[in-house]
């Protein structure tokens, strides 16, 4: 199994370098050869550019470094561009010595670390941020999220509790409901969060979007597709562009045999890896003529990631290999490696599905153990677990 990444790497190297065989010289000087990210008309890029210029004059200004890092991080979040995470790290790193007592420094560092999946380092940095500024909700919220990703539910719950006096009740309640929904209290968590959303009234649209998406996911797991659809529609009505919502909504559409709707929804989102994966899946299901093109674009991106040794996309890569390429063995190799780092329900699901498809039921054991110990409720998970158990895995 460990051979797969090496093989992928070799194939990717050939692909990447053979694609670059013929350099050219443009015919005219006025030919536009590259379009840069919208420096001219994006005020947030202009702002951070001017901060960078200030930094050249005052390289010792740690507060400025931290601010630049945060701004680049926000840009990375908004535009999904990893270069900004790199720029943020470059701005932040030199501040380490002078900012050891600055909570903002440790928060910014923690954010960057979790983005590159250095969860252990991120937890340490975020704890340090909380030590220095116990009243700040942000580091606590991020720790709760990382604990969730790594399936440490009691820890996550205790972070959520700490949020209660520090933040909006809907967020604290949503945090708690999210953990409870993963640990055997799904119907109660769903009811409580629904009530809280109604009680909260008009709040920040981002917060409502987040709560509605969570509710939709819970409704799906409760086997109430009509309810789920209503939550998704509420979320979409808010008019906030959110890749996670689009991903969850299109997964739902695909699962309900409504792939053409998902394709229509995502038509302009080819540039996002996670949404391109949904396009490829929906395209395959709907036998869309563009499906092969989406699949090959995605293959190129996974190859490029393999080439530089990135391990950030393994869950998506597993889904791609299983559902688009139909290669369960490769998919299982990805899903297995992914599960050593990320243990959310989606990660467990893909591990079970690939193990089943590759006919290696025992490979799904970590996910089955998690399912048993967490009491996670989802009929489709139970079915997968039953099928795996029937083939010799321990339920």
């Amino acid at each position, binding site marked *: 199994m460990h051979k797969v990444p090496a093989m992928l790497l070799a194939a990717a190297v*050939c692909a990447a370098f053979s694609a*670059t065989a013929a350099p050219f*010289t443009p015919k005219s*000087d006025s030919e*536009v050869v590259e379009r840069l990210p919208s420096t001219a008309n994006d005020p947030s890029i202009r702002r951070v550019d001017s901060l960078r210029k200030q930094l050249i004059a005052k390289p010792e200004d740690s507060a400025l470094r931290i601010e630049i890092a945060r701004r680049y991080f926000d840009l990375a979040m908004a535009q999904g561009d990893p270069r900004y995470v*790199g720029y943020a790290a470059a701005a932040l790193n030199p501040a380490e010595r002078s900012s050891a007592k600055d909570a903002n420094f440790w928060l910014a560092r923690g954010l960057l670390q979790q983005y590159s999946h250095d969860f252990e380092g991120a937890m340490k940095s975020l704890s340090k941020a909380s030590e220095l500024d116990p009243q700040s909700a942000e580091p606590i919220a991020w720790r709760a999220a990382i604990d969730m990703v790594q399936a440490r539910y009691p820890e996550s719950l205790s972070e959520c509790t700490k949020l209660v006096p520090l933040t909006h009740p809907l967020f604290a309640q949503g945090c708690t409901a999210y953990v409870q929904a993963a640990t055997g209290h799904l119907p109660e968590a769903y009811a409580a969060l629904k009530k809280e959303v109604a009680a909260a009234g008009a709040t920040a649209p981002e*917060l409502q979007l987040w709560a509605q998406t969570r509710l939709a996911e819970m409704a799906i797991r409760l086997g109430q597709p009509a309810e789920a659809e209503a939550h998704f529609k509420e979320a979409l009505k808010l008019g906030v562009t*959110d890749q996670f919502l689009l991903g969850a909504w299109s997964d739902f559409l695909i699962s309900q045999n409504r792939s053409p709707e998902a394709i229509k929804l995502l038509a302009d989102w080819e540039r996002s890896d996670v949404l391109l994966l949904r396009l490829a899946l929906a395209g395959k299901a709907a036998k869309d003529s563009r499906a092969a093109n989406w699949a090959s674009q995605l293959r190129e991106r996974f190859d490029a990631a393999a080439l530089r040794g990135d391990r950030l*996309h393994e869950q998506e890569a597993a889904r791609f290999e299983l559902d688009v390429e139909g290669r369960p063995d490769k998919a299982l190799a990805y899903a297995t490696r992914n599960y050593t780092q990320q243990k959310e329900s989606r990660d467990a699901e893909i591990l079970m599905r690939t193990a089943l498809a590759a006919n290696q039921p025992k490979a799904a054991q970590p996910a089955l153990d998690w399912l048993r110990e967490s009491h996670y409720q989802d009929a489709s998970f139970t079915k997968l677990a039953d099928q795996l158990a029937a083939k010799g895995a321990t339920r």
Partner: protein
Amino acid sequence: MKRWLLFIASMVVLMPAWAHKPSDSYLTVRAEEERVLIRWDIALRDLDYVLQLDRDGNGELTWGEVKQRGNDITRYAIDHLAITGGNAACVPAASGDMQLDHHSDGTYAVLTLAAPCPHLRSGLKLNYSLLFDVDPTHRGLVQWIAPGSASAQPLVFSTDSAEQGLQLQAPSAGETLKQYVVEGVWHIWMGYDHILFLLSLLLPAVLIRMAGRWEPAPSLKKSLLEVLKVVTAFTLAHSITLSLAVLGFISLPSRFVESTIAASIIVAALNNLRGSIEKRRWVMAFVFGLIHGFGFASALADLGLPQGALALALVGFNLGVEAGQMAIVVCFVPLAFWLRGTKFYLRGVMPVGSVLIAIVALYWFIQRAFDFQGPF
């Protein structure tokens, strides 16, 4: 508002929703007797970030804007790549005009550099530092081609591995060959479909068809001749298509190939029951062998083919497949010959075994042809 955005993101967007590729540059580094030749592709977007190529700030780079800064670009690049040959610096200089090329994430400047390096034989080192100061997630992806080597070795340069030695010894032809022979053997043993096809054809090799019934073959010589014909035809056929496919002359859709391989096993196994193709079994081995060759080719492609050592990989893999196949024949034939007169073989192995093989292959066929994910 911003605070909310981050909280919310914290609960949902831990998956890296990258809409773009991270920053990489691509180098092909080749050593000759006394110099090092480099082709270096650097993203224009990255060059703009450090050198402000977009003079008019309109967000569009024209060829004129890039070309005008050609010297700066070359100098910036050279300043961030230190080559050492036998403890002496080998300083690269442009050896051709800057050009452009497209990669999956945009347009790249292509630099052609050469560095005189008289002592490279006593140890060659590369220190890469492009963009690390502004983007520590940047990577330099190097294809290193050692002197006299036909194939390239991939190296990744990052902030943690900015300096690396370049191995002067190319992986020898012998090593490459050995590696692919092993892969070939492995493939035929793990690819049960090829084994089952071969066994279906070999089961009746120790028998002869008389008056609509299978009887034990009278002599070992006759059986061996039959085995030889079948195995040679199969080998010849799959070698032909394996080579044609790997060299890029023909390609067939893998679903078709995989389904036909499954179908070939069904036909071969069922034929054992009726014996309709008795004399010309080698013809069947040849015809279906052609299809199995395509199957081998896609397995070989999955392994990754070394650039420049394609022929070696092809020969090695094929030799491996033949060796693996011979091992099966050598184990199976004496046993079958020994048992050929027994009821166990005539009434058991031959008919029941063939039916079982056909059932398994039928299942594969359904799975492959109709994309059916069954319980096995």
